[in-house]
Every structure is written in structure tokens, then in C-alpha cells.
């Protein structure tokens, strides 16, 4: 132990003299290992760590796939009565819960926040093994059709909206005119399975009976994406068996109930079991593998760089090592001394790495919660620490081993005798070349991949959308009552509100409908002429919607003011749907039936299709007059102006007290939020490409500069016999060019291997323009390499030749 402490002390003293070396090693290894630990912890969480629920491998999300006549899945969502039917009649699940999601305004608080709401049957929390901070979970008193108005808060909601009030139990909270009594607060550590969307957490839970889709209770022909069924299958059954049992159960009843609707003739229901884990994780495992590959590349580059630094340092220390050897140090003694240094450095690096990993978790949780599942469970855990310890050990030994490998123990003695001449410590030329090849190959691969992804993201961000969101804000209103007032009562209030809002100085124009970014519904329609069925996206719009959104009219007319006021049976379709309806002629005048004996719509206009921020293709869309009772409005403001929540709330209050402001969103912000993945990708890849280039340039510079240093006397000799600077630069470049070319060639081979192995995954990204990206990448790497050839040479060729020759004699 004494020996160990002595060696650590020696290592510390020796390293203290080389602060630049220590700083380079610790920052390079610390940052890259930090990134590695961060991604490894994430990978463990997403690939290996089970969900934090009891017997989670038996938890399944049940999907309700509706197949059309051709048998192809048309939509994957439950009908309300279908869901209830399954819940009541199934016998394959040990425990089962039906869940629904929504949003509502908490009107009993002065700031009236809009909260994410969840509605569930009592088994839900028990199945998830939830524990409570305060109070109780839902029980039999909240079972189906009990209509017991109670609520459970999440820990975060309790803290944020109620400041963690200890007397929260039995407090009343009001939503849509219903007053609920708080019966419990979920524990801080409860993790909600994010089934509906990654990053979407529920703020408050109500009994199932109060869910917002309840109006669809009897409608077998309507589906809702929020209706969810989760169950724990009986241990004796497999997922496939369960599918086989419940499919006829659901199918038969549905067919019986939609038999009166000709649209659904020949359609079928297929039940699909999806493990809760796969639903929550989605495609994220691919992302993790990509991240892991990227970060491993970085670690390899960093390793090559630092290995090179360690070896240069050993070369520098050869005299000192020779003295140790002369005094009787064995090879193993020298190794231990080197290990003490590398161990100390790796310890410092890993401390930095853990700090960086913790920062990484924070960034992921605050920025990437909507992209990566389960990130809220990330923290420095046992896996992180074991990995950290492992890497610290492995890299310490590796660096010490590489350094000691360079020592020619026998030649060490001659160093002292021949006054510093000789080659007791040297990095072999072949090893240096291998380092250069690996550096160039990894850097080329990483930079190429990053630039490729960067371009893809930037292309999506800058793609023309066919609509404008400049200076626009959309608002929507909710009603503070349990039942929605009839349309004829709402319409005059909305007209009055529109007038009030237009009086505000910053408001230029108002469209009494949602914006182009509000989303669309699906509508089952039949073209009367051909009797063909379609399910286009649909929405209701105002008369000035298209002109305000900048969506071009191709044919026919916009809706008139009268169309909207009287809700005339007219329809505007986009060019994609028009083409489907009438591939050669015009769609104007065609009649479209919404089914049953309802009056058909007549197409009066065709507009150009718009691309949503994250969409690559334009779906079929139809637009109908929204009517004057629509409680959504889109405001166009004067350039550079904004409108506050308070201004809108006071306008609403001046008109009626029955309505609350449900949401106010700036369209530009919604667009950016939808493009978050692209923005995040663009920034991450740009940063990664720069880091890679930076690391590669340090590394290449280090190796090439060492190589040049080794050739100092040769260069001096060449200068002495008349070589000019240009000729020497040419020489070094020529000598290294083939190694660099080999590195590039190697990267091409690796890319081909990856391409052959993962053709189907990569095919999406492939295109001829990638060749340009590749050429660009190779050009960057070549320039970098040229620079790394020239820069270390400078010190020799820009000085009189004697500087390079001195010490040779």
C-alpha cells in the first residue's frame, strides 16, 4: 500500500509539471466518456431495463384495427361502445383498465391553467403498482357508471398548481362546470406510462365516467384515438392466444351494430396485442443504436488521440526512464509508474465524465422529453457508475500498456551512455500509420453521417409548406358548464367577441376557425357519381380562411359569407383529393355524401394542398363551412405585434362569463415545436460534426507532428543539401497522402458493409446528392490532413537549417 501511495504521489508531481497535457487528456476523455456514459445509461434504460411496473412483461396495450373491404387497416382506434364492450366482456386479462386522455381548463384557480387530463377505471393505478403521496387511489366507488366526482393529482401538479398545500385532500377543483373532490396525490416516484405520445404526461386523473368522448357512447361508426385499453394477461395465456380470443368478441358485435351503415359493408375488426414496452419505446431503440454508434466513434477518435499523446509523453520521458532502469527498475516497475499516471488521469476524466453525463440527462429531460421515451427515469445509477469504473480501469491499463510497449528496455541503458542519442523509446512507423488510418476513417464516417442527417433535417425545416403562419395566433375557447350551449346561442356571442377582438389595435384580421396547424379529423365520405368510398382529412373553415393562410385557390371559388352563416352544403377540396375524384376532368360540381340520408355536399372550389411541418406527403383533404358558432379563431396581427392572454381573456369576459380561454398559441411557435426533432437533429449533428472535426484535427496533428519530429534530422539534412520549403512540404504531404487515402478508402468499405447489412433502414436516406455530401466530407478531411501535415513542419522549414540539424552531431 505504501508503494501505491508513493507511486500516486510521484505521478501527481510529474503530471503537475505538464498542465497542458493533463488538461488535454482530462477534457478530451472526460467529454467523450461523459457522452458515452450518458448514452449508455439511456441505452440500458431503453433496451434492457424493464418498465417500472409489477410483472410488466404481461402488460399489453390492445389496439383496435379497423380493416376496410380490401382487408387493409384503415385506422387503429377504438369506438367508444366497442371499448366498453371489450372491457365488460373480456375474460383473458387478470386486470384491465380503460383510459382516455384530454385537456381541460381548471376554472377554480385564478390563473385558469389548461391541464392534461386522464380518465381511468380503478384497476389502472393498481395494475401499475402506483403508490400515493397522500390519500387514496380510485376504488370500487369510482367504478364504471358510478359518476363519483373525485380527482387524483400527480405530484408535479400538486407542487406546481397548488404549491404543495398539505391540506389538498378534499379540496374542490372545477373543470367544465363539474366540481371534483381531490382524494389523492400520486407519489413523486410514480412514472406514468406515456402511451398516447412520448413526453405527454397527465396532470390530473378523473374516474372514467367523466371522459370527454362520452358523447360517442352509442356511436359504433366513430372512432377516437384517445380511447385506450391496457390489460395484464393471465399467466396461462400468450399474446397471440389473447388476440385470437378477443378478435371475434369485438368484431362480431361491431359488425352487428354497423350493419345499417352501408359505408362499413365488408369491413372488419382485428385486435392487436402490443406489449406496453413496445408502445412506450416505439422506434426509439433505433435512435439509441445510432447515438451509441456515433458516440463510440467519438470515443475511438479520442482514444487514438490520447494514446498518441501518452506515447509522445513517454518518448519525452525516455531519459528519466533510462535513469530508473539504470537504478534497477524492472520493466514491471516502469509499467506501474506509467499506470499510476494514466490511472490518475483517467480518474480525473471519469469525474468530469460523470458531471457531463448528469448535465446530459438534464438536457435530455428538459429538451428531448417529447422525442425520447422514459427520459424522466434517467439518472446517474448503478449502471452508470459500474460503466464509469470499467472505462476508467480499461483506459488506464490501455494507455499504460501502449506507453510501456514503446519502451525498448534494452536500448534504455545506451541512452545514458551515448548522451541522449539513440532510440530507446519510439512509436513505430506502422503504428503511427494505423493511427492515422483509423482517425481518418472514423472521422470521415462520422462527419459524413452527420452532414447527411444535418442536410435532411435542414431540408425538412426549409421545405416550402404552401401556407403562411407569419404574425398569426390561434385561440380556442371552452365552456365553463357541464353541457355545451346550443349553436344558436353561441353564434351571437362569438360574433360579438370577434368584433371586440378586432377593436384591439394589433389585430388586423380574424378567421373564425382553427388555423392550418390545428389538425384535421377523418371523415368517411362517398362520391355519389362513382359510389366510391374515401376517408379524407377534414376540417371546418371560415370564408376568409384560405386567403388569410395564403393557401392558393386553383379552381372555383372560396366559401362566401352566406355559405358560412347558413352552413350551406358546399365543400372545398385540395388538389390531391380532386385528382382522385376526377383524374382527368374537374372536380367542381361533384357531389359528396357524408352517408345515411344526410344532404350531400357540392364541391365549389379546389385549393392547393399544404404540407404540414413534419409531413412528407400531402393527404386528401376536404373543407366545409365552419359556421358562426365555432369557438376557435385565428388572429392575424400587425407585423411585429403580439397579443397577450390577458387581452383575450378581458375581451371574452366583456362578452360573456360562460366561456374561458382554453388555449392561445402563436402559430410560428407551434410550427417550430412540430419541427423540434428536425431542429434538434440539425443542431446535434452540426455540433457532433464540429466536435469530430476538432478531435480529428487534434489527433491528426498530434500523430503527424510526432512523425515530423522524428524526421527532424532527415529534414535538416535535406535542407542542408538544398531542398527548398516547397519541396519539403511536398515530401511530407506525399508520404502521408496514401495513408490518408487509405483511411478514406477504409471508411468507404465500412459504409458499404453497413449499407449491405442495414439496406432497408438506410434506403430512406440514400440519394445521389449523398455523393456530393461524401465528396464534401472527403474534401474537409483532406484539407484538415493537409493542414496537419504542414503545421508541424513550419517550425523546421521556416528557420535556418541548423536548428533541425543541431543535436544530430
Amino acid at each position, binding site marked *: 500500500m505504501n508503494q501505491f501511495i508513493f507511486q500516486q504521489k510521484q505521478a501527481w508531481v510529474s503530471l503537475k509539471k505538464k498542465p497542458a497535457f493533463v488538461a488535454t487528456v482530462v477534457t478530451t476523455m472526460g467529454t467523450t466518456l461523459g457522452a458515452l456514459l450518458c448514452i449508455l445509461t439511456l441505452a440500458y434504460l431503453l433496451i434492457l431495463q424493464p418498465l417500472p411496473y409489477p410483472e410488466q412483461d404481461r402488460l399489453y396495450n390492445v389496439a383496435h384495427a379497423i380493416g376496410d373491404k380490401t382487408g387493409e387497416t384503415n385506422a387503429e382506434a377504438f369506438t367508444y361502445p366497442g371499448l366498453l364492450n371489450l372491457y365488460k366482456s373480456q375474460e383473458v386479462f387478470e386486470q384491465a383498465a380503460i383510459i382516455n386522455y384530454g385537456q381541460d381548463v381548471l376554472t377554480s384557480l385564478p390563473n385558469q391553467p389548461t391541464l392534461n387530463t386522464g380518465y381511468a377505471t380503478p384497476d389502472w393505478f393498481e395494475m401499475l403498482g402506483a403508490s400515493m403521496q397522500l390519500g387514496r387511489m380510485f376504488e370500487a366507488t369510482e367504478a364504471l357508471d358510478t359518476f363519483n366526482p373525485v380527482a387524483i393529482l400527480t405530484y408535479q401538479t400538486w407542487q406546481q398548481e397548488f404549491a404543495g398545500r398539505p391540506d389538498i385532500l378534499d379540496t374542490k377543483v372545477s373543470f367544465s362546470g363539474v366540481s371534483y373532490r381531490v382524494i389523492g396525490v400520486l407519489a413523486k416516484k410514480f412514472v406514468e406510462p406515456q402511451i398516447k405520445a412520448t413526453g405527454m404526461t397527465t396532470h390530473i386523473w378523473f374516474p372514467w365516467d367523466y371522459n370527454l368522448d362520452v358523447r360517442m357512447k352509442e356511436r359504433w361508426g366513430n372512432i377516437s384515438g384517445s380511447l385506450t385499453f391496457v390489460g395484464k394477461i393471465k399467466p396461462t395465456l400468450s399474446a397471440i392466444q389473447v388476440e385470437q380470443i378477443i378478435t371475434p368478441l369485438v368484431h362480431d358485435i361491431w359488425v352487428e351494430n354497423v350493419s345499417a351503415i352501408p359505408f362499413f359493408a365488408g369491413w372488419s375488426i382485428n385486435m392487436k396485442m402490443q406489449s406496453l414496452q413496445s408502445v412506450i419505446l416505439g422506434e426509439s431503440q433505433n435512435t439509441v443504436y445510432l447515438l451509441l454508434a456515433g458516440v463510440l466513434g467519438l470515443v475511438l477518435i479520442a482514444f487514438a488521440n490520447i494514446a498518441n499523446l501518452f506515447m509522445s509523453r513517454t518518448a519525452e520521458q525516455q531519459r528519466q526512464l533510462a535513469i530508473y532502469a539504470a537504478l534497477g527498475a524492472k520493466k514491471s516497475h516502469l509499467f506501474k509508474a506509467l499506470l499510476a499516471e494514466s490511472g490518475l488521469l483517467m480518474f480525473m476524466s471519469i469525474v468530469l465524465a460523470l458531471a457531463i453525463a448528469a448535465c446530459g440527462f438534464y438536457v435530455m429531460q428538459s429538451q428531448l422529453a417529447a422525442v425520447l421515451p422514459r427520459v424522466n427515469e434517467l439518472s446517474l445509477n448503478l449502471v452508470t457508475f459500474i460503466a464509469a469504473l470499467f472505462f476508467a480501469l480499461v483506459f488506464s491499463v490501455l494507455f499504460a500498456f501502449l506507453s510501456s510497449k514503446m519502451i525498448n528496455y534494452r536500448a534504455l541503458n545506451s541512452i545514458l551512455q551515448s548522451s541522449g542519442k539513440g532510440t530507446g523509446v519510439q512509436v513505430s512507423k506502422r503504428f503511427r500509420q494505423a493511427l492515422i488510418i483509423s482517425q481518418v476513417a472514423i472521422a470521415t464516417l462520422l462527419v459524413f453521417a452527420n452532414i447527411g442527417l444535418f442536410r435532411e433535417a435542414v431540408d425538412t425545416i426549409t421545405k416550402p409548406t404552401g401556407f403562411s403562419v407569419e404574425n398569426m395566433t390561434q385561440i380556442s375557447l371552452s365552456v365553463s358548464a357541464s353541457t355545451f350551449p346550443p349553436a344558436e346561442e353561441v353564434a351571437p356571442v362569438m360574433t360579438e367577441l370577434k368584433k371586440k377582438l378586432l377593436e384591439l389595435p394589433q389585430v388586423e384580421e380574424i378567421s373564425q376557425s382553427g388555423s392550418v396547424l390545428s389538425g384535421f379529423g377523418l371523415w368517411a365520405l362517398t362520391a355519389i357519381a362513382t359510389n366510391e368510398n374515401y376517408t379524407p382529412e377534414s376540417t371546418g373553415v371560415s370564408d376568409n380562411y384560405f386567403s388569410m393562410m395564403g393557401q392558393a385557390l386553383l379552381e372555383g371559388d372560396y366559401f362566401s359569407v352566406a355559405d358560412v352563416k347558413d352552413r350551406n352544403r358546399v365543400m372545398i377540396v385540395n388538389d390531391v383529393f380532386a385528382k382522385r375524384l376526377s383524374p382527368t376532368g374537374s372536380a367542381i360540381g361533384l357531389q359528396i355524401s357524408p352517408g345515411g340520408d344526410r344532404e350531400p355536399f357540392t364541391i365549389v372550389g379546389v385549393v392547393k394542398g399544404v404540407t404540414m411541418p413534419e409531413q412528407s406527403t400531402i393527404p386528401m383533404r376536404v373543407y366545409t363551412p365552419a359556421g358562426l358558432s365555432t369557438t376557435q379563431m385565428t388572429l392575424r396581427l400587425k407585423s411585429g405585434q403580439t397579443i397577450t392572454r390577458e387581452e383575450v381573456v378581458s375581451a371574452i369576459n366583456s362578452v360573456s362569463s360562460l366561456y374561458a380561454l382554453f388555449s392561445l398559441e402563436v402559430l410560428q411557435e407551434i410550427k417550430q415545436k412540430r419541427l423540434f426533432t428536425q431542429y434538434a437533429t440539425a443542431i446535434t449533428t452540426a455540433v457532433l460534426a464540429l466536435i469530430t472535426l476538432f478531435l480529428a484535427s487534434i489527433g491528426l496533428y498530434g500523430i503527424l507532428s510526432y512523425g515530423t519530429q522524428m524526421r527532424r*534530422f*532527415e529534414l*535538416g*539534412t*535535406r*535542407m*542542408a*543539401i*538544398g*531542398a*527548398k*520549403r*516547397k*519541396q519539403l512540404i511536398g515530401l511530407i504531404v506525399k508520404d502521408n497522402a496514401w495513408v490518408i487515402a487509405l483511411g478514406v478508402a477504409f471508411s468507404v468499405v465500412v459504409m458499404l458493409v453497413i449499407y449491405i447489412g442495414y439496406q432497408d433502414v438506410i434506403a430512406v436516406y440514400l440519394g445521389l446528392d449523398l455523393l456530393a455530401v461524401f465528396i464534401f466530407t472527403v474534401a474537409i478531411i483532406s484539407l484538415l490532413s493537409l493542414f496537419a501535415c504542414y503545421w508541424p513542419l513550419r517550425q523546421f*522549414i*521556416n*528557420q*535556418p*537549417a*541548423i536548428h533541425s*540539424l543541431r543535436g*544530430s*552531431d
Partner: protein
Amino acid sequence: MSDIKIKMNNISKVFETDELETHALQNINITIKAGDYVSISGPSGCGKSTLLSILGLLDMPSGGEYEIEGVNVTDLSLDQAAEIRNSKIGFIFQSFNLIDELSVFDNVALPLRYKAKVPSDKEIATRVAECLELVGMSHRSSHKPNQLSGGQQQRIAIARALVAKPAILLVDEPTGNLDSKSGDQVMDVLEKLNDNGTTICMVTHDPRYADMAKTQLRLLDGAILTTPRLATA
């Protein structure tokens, strides 16, 4: 006069560090004529190597004037100095300084490849063969330097120094790394070359070899002790 190969006037060299000024050379005046064989000797640290570096344009003097074959070479750019070294000066180093990766032939040919106008391959081959012949090493032209003995390596270095037909050979302790037999052989080669008209300037601390030169200069603390016989003549 065209037969004056080298003329140094009041050459001095000062090494400056933050606190110290070392006068390595002071007021050196040397004239070397065509066909001369000059030795420069003196104790360790007297400035021999510095003088040879300046003579060979490997380093710049701090003061004074320097001419090679009537051309002022006191203030040259690095590339201009390289060009003069290539065409006018042949170097022979104590440690031979051959390039290990290149064959004997390519080592000798190297100065020709650095010429402003590179001769044809045939011309290079002829000239290299001539020079190897002069030092008696024709049979080794495809060997690598590390396959040769020290004495043989030094003779290759002499061939390389001669290949571009320089105005003067600058020789730095040519026998320093050799045993006495090989040393004698190398000295014989030099003597023969001088007999055939090659101008030589040699730095050595070995009085036996210094005596072989026609003109002997002695350096002490950066200044010349003995007035050269030929220079006063």
C-alpha cells in the same frame, strides 16, 4: 577574382537569451581560394560548428559580410539559401546523415533532384555513378545505408556532397564516428579529391587530421588565433 571561393569579412554571431548574450564568433575574416584545403580546429565550445554552419548557409551571421564565388550571401531568404547550398556547397557531417529509407544511389542523387532544373534520369545516373566511382563505392549503389559500415556510409556521404559539383566541400568532424582505420580511409579520399582540385573546408578537433590540411585555422573563444598563411600571402 574568380578563384576566390569564399570570403568572410568581420563575421560575428551572437546568441541571445533573455538574460545572456553569448558571442559565439567575433570578427572572423576568412578567404578560401580554389583548390584550398582548410582545417578549422579548436577546443570544444570554441565556435567551430557555428562557423561551419554559417559557412554552409545553415545559419545566419549576426554581423559582417559573406561572399561565395563573388556573390554576396549575407542576407538571403531561406529558399535562396537553399538554392545556394544546393549548387555551391557540399556537406559532409560527422554522423553521415544519410536517409535510411533511400538506397545509396537515391541518397547520392538527392541534391540533383532539388536543383532548380532537375537533370534527366540518364544524366543523374551518369553523375551518381561518377561520384560513387570517385569514393570507390560503385558496387554498393542499390544497398540501404544501414547495410553499410560507418566508413562506407561516410564515403557515400562524400559522394553525395560532390554530386552537384559544389564550389566547396564543408566537412564537419568526418572521422568523429569512425574507427581509426575507416577514418584514415575517409581522409585519404578527401586528400585525393583536393589533389584533383576540390576546395575543402574541414572542422576537426583531431590535430593529426588538421595537419593534413594546407591551411590550418585555430579558433579560441570565437576568434581566429593563427593568421592563415595563405591569406597573408
